[in-house]
């Protein structure tokens, strides 16, 4: 197995009549950063959500670290602690302050004491530059700050893999950079990441490989350089010309 962390083969998923994923394959190496792009409705979110089984795939296999995570006898809750996920809408818990958002799962899932969890929570808030906001409730934070807390919350679980679903799409333009910076730092530190994003600065600056998901097919997969400068498919060129200006 060696260096492959994520191994996805022939993933299919339909909602009713509509086949959203039509046999998608993707391998991700340990420490690799993969960006997924594609038009709206292509199935990007669905694909990402299948990886931690927020959506149940119809067929196909997903292995993390050689362990299948599809099928009935998988411990979903344990599996999910190893996969962090960051959502477009942040999904912070509004009734808890920033620190409690992070420590909840540390205490309830990882069974840490309050002191251990607080320590770990503060460390992770520091990583995203928000230790001073530990006591703030989500509604007292800007969009960019909320997303950074959400990242700290996911990172505190020490995941093997991080999934991002358009983490900057809900942000005002001036707040995007602070979130991208945290993502770039993570990539730098060797975190394995699969990011659905149209944020070119992250794709170009942080990713090793970019994929184009189009109508449920992984149309193009190429090293970042090649994807932007010399893609195989006309469809990719078309898509890029739309996104780039």
């Amino acid at each position, binding site marked *: 197995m060696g260096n492959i962390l994520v191994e996805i083969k022939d993933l299919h998923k339909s909602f009713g009549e509509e086949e959203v994923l039509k046999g998608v394959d993707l391998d991700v190496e340990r420490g690799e950063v993969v960006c997924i792009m594609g038009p709206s409705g292509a199935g990007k979110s669905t694909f990402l959500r299948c990886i931690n089984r927020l959506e149940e795939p119809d067929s196909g296999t997903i292995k993390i670290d050689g362990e299948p995570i599809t099928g009935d006898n998988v411990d979903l809750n344990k599996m999910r602690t190893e996969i962090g996920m960051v959502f477009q809408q942040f*999904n912070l818990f509004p009734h808890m302050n920033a620190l409690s958002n992070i420590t*909840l799962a540390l205490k*309830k899932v990882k069974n840490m004491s309050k002191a251990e969890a607080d320590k770990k929570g503060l460390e992770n808030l520091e990583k995203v530059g928000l230790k001073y906001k530990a006591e703030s409730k989500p509604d007292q934070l800007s969009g960019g700050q909320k997303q950074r807390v959400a990242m700290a919350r996911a990172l505190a679980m020490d995941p093997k893999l991080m999934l991002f679903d358009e983490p900057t799409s809900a942000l005002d333009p001036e707040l995007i950079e602070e979130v991208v910076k945290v993502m770039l730092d993570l990539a730098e530190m060797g975190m394995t990441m699969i990011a659905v994003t149209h944020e070119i600065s992250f794709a170009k600056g942080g990713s090793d490989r970019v994929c184009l998901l189009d109508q449920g097919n992984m149309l193009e997969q190429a090293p970042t350089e090649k994807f932007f400068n010399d893609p195989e498919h006309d469809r990719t060129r078309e898509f890029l010309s739309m996104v780039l200006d």
Partner: protein
Amino acid sequence: MEAFAHNFLNINVLIRTHGFLITGLFMTLRLIGFSLILAMAWGLFLSVVRNVHLPGLNTFIVFYVDTLRSLPILVLLMLIYYALPFVGIQVPAFTAAVLALSLNGGAYYAEIFRAGIEAIHRGQTEAARTLGLNYIQTMRHVILPQAIRVVLPPLTTNTLEFIKATAAASVVALPDILRQASQAMNSTFNPTPLTGALVLYLLICLPLVQLIRRFENN
């Protein structure tokens, strides 16, 4: 005017019967305490189970909730107290009252909690599950604290109705406020104890009504 005062505001009668009324008050408070906790817990349980969306179970819960909301509490109470003995189940008056009130109140509370749970954005559940919390932990720590805040106004209104409905227990001879007052009235040939009962109910319910008014003004 004098006749009215003699019949409804008779201090002497009140002094003679206040012990009765106090006993009734404690019985009513005990009844409220037990049945309110059970009704809320039962309603919460039903709404949390219903949110799992197991088809057969949900049909059953909906059937239960609709049936109980259609039954007058008096009918349910008399069924439990007077009809069950015919099949060999003897239920003491207090238990019968708690049972009837909890079964009925649980149906109402279930609907209120369900509305609250459904008002919380799906992303909250997804974020919690993604962190590895199980369904119960997600409900307990993430969804319910938010859901209950959302439904606090209908929750309070329902609790007010619930408390008033406990007066139904007097039909199975439970010595609550109303029953004690009417006993006192019968033994003194003077209805002043009913005025006492009225005051006691006002003392219990008016603060809740004020709370509801505050919700409405916000």
